[in-house]
């Protein structure tokens, strides 16, 4: 997208100002004219109909917006062609009249004295995404609306990191919502989820369009499984079965309630090489979506292979109908554009979570990008907020990666841990494979409890046998929680100290880790995943079936013979 440069764009905007109100800004949209909307505030449709990032908005609609500027952040606003002609002072005829309003009272970034960036609209010449996307989005939406598919419409969006999976998923949701009252969303990216904090995969029913970065629209899931990590790498079979479980829940839930199954959008992790591709393939085999959208960066060493890459060669043309593969170019990244790193976006997600813990009713829309001051303020608020409390004897605790720890030691592990809150804990450990049965069908024994949310165990009082918890879910919902699960999730460093407090687990007086091993082992797995072991991985991949892996242990070999 090319921004209308400097003064002409500004002048054009000034001309369109029709209401002489300093707190609001109105724009008359002409046919074919487009605007890039960014900042924080409310967008109101006074008359006509518009399209905002794929979402069809009617007269009278009000949308809360929190969007960054720049090609990927700004929202694309356009009048829909069929809008009736409206008489507007100074501008003559227009298709639609849109009003931009700041929040009242004005939002102020915590810990900073400057008000949040106001909502602005700048004329632009094209959308922030490739033209191929627009065609594909329309076709996908048509296909979903036509109801001619043998199975419910489900689109799985894959691709390596940074190709715009998240943006595409939001656009697709918005397009689908223009034709249907609700859309199901299966969020399988436990590292940078779209709708929750990291560490879980979740199923949602969306009725409102999605705008802006993920941390601006966190919401409680319909159903979720706690993964306890930011990657599926620790326990791939458990991840695949959890994904299958959520898909089953989607099918069951939708048939029970609505006559027509809502369309499903699936967001996937950006780990599409090596073991990541195996996991993705196993998930795709489980779900068999009607459409697979592959966003290709153009670099074959980074992209998933073409075609129906997930099908096992020996098991081709099975009962499930073939999925339609749509390959699209990656979203263009603007020059000098600020793209947050994965840890940074996770930190933003945790910041939004921390704020929701402290004030569950406040809208997450008010955060554009947390600064270090807002982290410190949130940390101080977390420290001061009265937590929920329960007797340690009334909840069970499970440590996902070491289930054999002595029970009396669990308080030490729970203290200051980030935990998954589970309502109906399953009977079997997640990593154990079923002994018999169809490997492609998850058995009931593998059912993993429904995770209703995430909590921070802010303290454990082992003497009084009390567990103190901070969470964003409400007390009524919390009453059902009977198990807390500990994975490897960590709050960002910046939320552990702030104001007059500092967590005891942030230790001063540590010696340097260089050459002493005083620091934790750096996870090189991420770097390994990025490294290009392309050809070998592709050749080897098809023979690995992650889901069946747990069922076929290697034959026992006496090691002495090998020596």
């Amino acid at each position, binding site marked *: 997208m090319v921004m209308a440069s400097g003064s002409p764009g500004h002048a054009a905007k000034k001309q369109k100002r029709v209401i002489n109100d300093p707190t609001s800004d109105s724009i008359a949209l002409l046919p074919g004219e487009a605007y890039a909307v960014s900042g924080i505030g409310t967008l109101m449709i006074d008359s006509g109909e518009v399209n905002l990032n794929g979402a069809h908005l009617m007269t009278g609609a009000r949308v809360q917006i929190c969007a960054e500027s720049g090609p990927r952040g700004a929202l694309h606003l356009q009048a829909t062609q069929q809008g009736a002609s409206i008489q507007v002072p100074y501008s003559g005829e227009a298709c639609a009249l849109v009003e931009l309003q700041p929040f009242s009272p004005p939002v102020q970034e915590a810990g900073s004295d400057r008000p949040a960036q106001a909502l602005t609209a700048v004329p632009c010449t094209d959308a922030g995404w490739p033209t191929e996307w627009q065609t594909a989005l329309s076709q996908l939406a048509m296909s979903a609306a036509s109801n001619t598919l043998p199975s419910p419409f489900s689109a799985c969006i894959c691709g390596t990191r940074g190709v715009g999976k998240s943006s595409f998923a939001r656009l697709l949701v918005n397009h689908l919502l223009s034709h249907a009252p609700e859309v199901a969303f299966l969020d399988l990216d436990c590292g940078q989820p779209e709708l929750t904090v990291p560490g879980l995969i979740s199923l949602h029913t969306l009725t409102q369009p999605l705008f802006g970065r993920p941390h601006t629209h966190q919401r409680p899931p319909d159903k979720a499984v706690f993964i306890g990590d930011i990657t599926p790498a620790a326990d791939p079979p458990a991840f695949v079965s959890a994904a299958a479980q959520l898909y089953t829940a989607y099918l069951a839930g939708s048939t029970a309630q609505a006559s027509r199954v809502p369309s499903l959008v699936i967001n996937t992790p950006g780990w599409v090489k090596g073991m990541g591709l195996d996991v993705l393939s196993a998930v795709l085999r489980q779900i068999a979506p009607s459409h697979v959208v592959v966003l290709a960066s153009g670099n074959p060493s980074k992209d998933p292979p073409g075609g129906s890459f997930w099908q096992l060669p020996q098991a081709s043309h099975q009962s499930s109908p073939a999925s339609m593969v749509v390959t699209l170019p990656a979203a263009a990244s603007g020059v000098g554009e600020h793209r947050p790193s994965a840890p940074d976006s996770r930190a933003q997600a945790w910041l939004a979570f921390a704020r929701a813990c402290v004030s569950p009713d406040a809208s997450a829309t008010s955060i554009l990008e947390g600064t270090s001051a807002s982290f410190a303020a949130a940390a*101080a608020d977390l*420290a*001061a*907020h*009265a*937590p*929920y*409390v*329960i007797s340690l*004897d009334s909840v069970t605790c499970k*440590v996902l*990666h*070491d289930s054999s*720890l002595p029970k009396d*030691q669990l*308080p*030490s592990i729970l*203290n*200051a841990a980030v935990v998954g809150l589970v309502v109906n804990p399953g009977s079997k450990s997640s990593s154990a494979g079923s002994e018999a049965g169809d490997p492609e069908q998850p058995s009931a024994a593998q059912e993993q409890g429904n995770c209703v949310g995430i909590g*921070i165990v*802010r*303290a454990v*009082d*082992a*003497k*009084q*046998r009390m567990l*103190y918890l901070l969470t964003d879910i409400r007390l009524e919902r919390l009453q059902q929680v009977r198990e807390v699960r*500990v994975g*490897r999730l*960590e*709050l960002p*460093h910046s*939320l552990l*100290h702030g104001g*007059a*407090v*500092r*967590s*005891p*687990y*942030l*230790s*001063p*007086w*540590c*010696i340097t*880790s260089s*050459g*002493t*091993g*005083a*620091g*934790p*082992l*750096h996870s*090189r797995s991420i770097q390994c995943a990025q490294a290009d072991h392309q050809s070998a991985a592709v050749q080897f991949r098809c023979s690995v079936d992650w889901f069946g892996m747990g069922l076929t242990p290697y034959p026992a070999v006496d*090691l*002495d013979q090998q*020596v």
Partner: protein
Amino acid sequence: MPEGRQVPWRSWEEWTLVKTALWSATAVDQRKGIEQVRLWRARGKLPLSVDVTAMLLDLRGRHTSGPSQSDPLLRLQYSMALILLVNGITDAEQKGKQARSVAGIAETAGLPRVLVDVRHEATHRGLPSLALLQLAAESALQWLRTAYWDRQHQHLLNMQAKVITLLQEFMKLQADALSRPQQAASDTDDDASVDPSPPGSSPGVSKAQELRKRRRQLAADLKDVVHPCMPGLIAQALLQPGILESHADDSQSNRTGVWKAALHSLCRTWPGLLPLLLRESISLLSRQGQAKPPNQRHAQAQHLHFVATLVWDIATGPRNQSLDLSISTDQTAVLLACCLRALVLLPADAAPPADSGDILPAAQPASIHREVLQHLAERLTQNMSQTAAASDSGQQPLRKKARMAEAAVKLQAMSAPLPADNSNLSHQGMEAAADGEVQKAEVLLEQLQDKVRRKAQAEVRERWSVAKDWKPCAIGHLPGPLEHNGILPDLPLVCGLESLEQQQVPEYQQDSAACLMLDAAAVLLNGQKAPSRK
């Protein structure tokens, strides 16, 4: 590094316990250390060196205890632990674009060459022999001990020493500043507000500026070493003999001035320092150094008395507008409880025998401590009875200590309200004790304790609820009575790990009402036996 690093242990004390256990000579103690590291592993952020140390010690222990495992399995485990160590150390140093050789990095880090070779063989060729692996494991353990454990331990000692040195210098500068009359007025003001002196000022002024500059620098250095959330460390350091004794020869008024100025200045960076300083003094008074000669002990007690009185004077003195130095009623109650408890904890032989009130030895070991504590408790009680508006009890001919204890109980009841009949019960108990009816008092106190216990049991929460009376504290901490940052919850360590610690430090944490009652009663009973020394 003011923010610190995320670690699995809650305090350096815990780390030191594990260090002692891991490197102890007995297999049983080593086992405890290994088990605790396993817990740390589950918490995450475990340093590589700790991880590998525990793995190797575990393997060594299992290997020497008997042939429980097959040879190849043991070799696999040894190999994996050593590969983790070498890769972990060298990977962290691969910072350039060009990968450096493992051997080169290992040499810089001082890793024994045998480890590099074993890693190479195990990764690229096959499992090395058990004999070689054991040799490598021994050298790895030796390296881990020097490169990590001893180094970290030494660093902790250095930092502790640094805090004391910096504080000593800080006090010295305060004294220097005080000795200059033109400087004295601005001493209690904020150090940051330096009025720019006109150019060409007199050498005396520039010298004063120089002093102020150095003091600011010192305060900044101190802040780098001790985070503002940890005033407890400053409190402990301030009461170290080195700092106390450095001003022993000064005149009383001079000493008061120096300390007053220093405490004001320190409280700006470490809010909440004063109550902690009081508690630390009380705790030191109750733990009288047995090893010291009696005359030194006497001097120490007097120093502590001086600091505690000064702190109390500052806290109850006129309010400073820019800085709140007052101690709340809740905090006073807790401090009083500490004080009473300390009085109870003082060894019985230290108290002068009841029937021989004639000749007392010149330096009765604990008597000075007892006296100081009693004086402190009295002052605290005075303040309490003023604020609690319990004026009627003053008319009763109750003994001083009985009033003290009563006020403490009342305040404890205020912070954790007991039903009316309970306070009545405690009152009866007090009176019975005061009248010398020991048995009756004990029965009554028993009843009270029982009630408190039952109340606590009734509060067991089977369903989630919102915690009441929450006070801000760090994540991982529980609200504490004196600390802004909260206190560490009492979390279980691996069984028996604590016993490795040489000396158990008595705890001065939140007392339950029942516990306090017992303490108060003990004071009362004790007080009847011991004649008043005034």
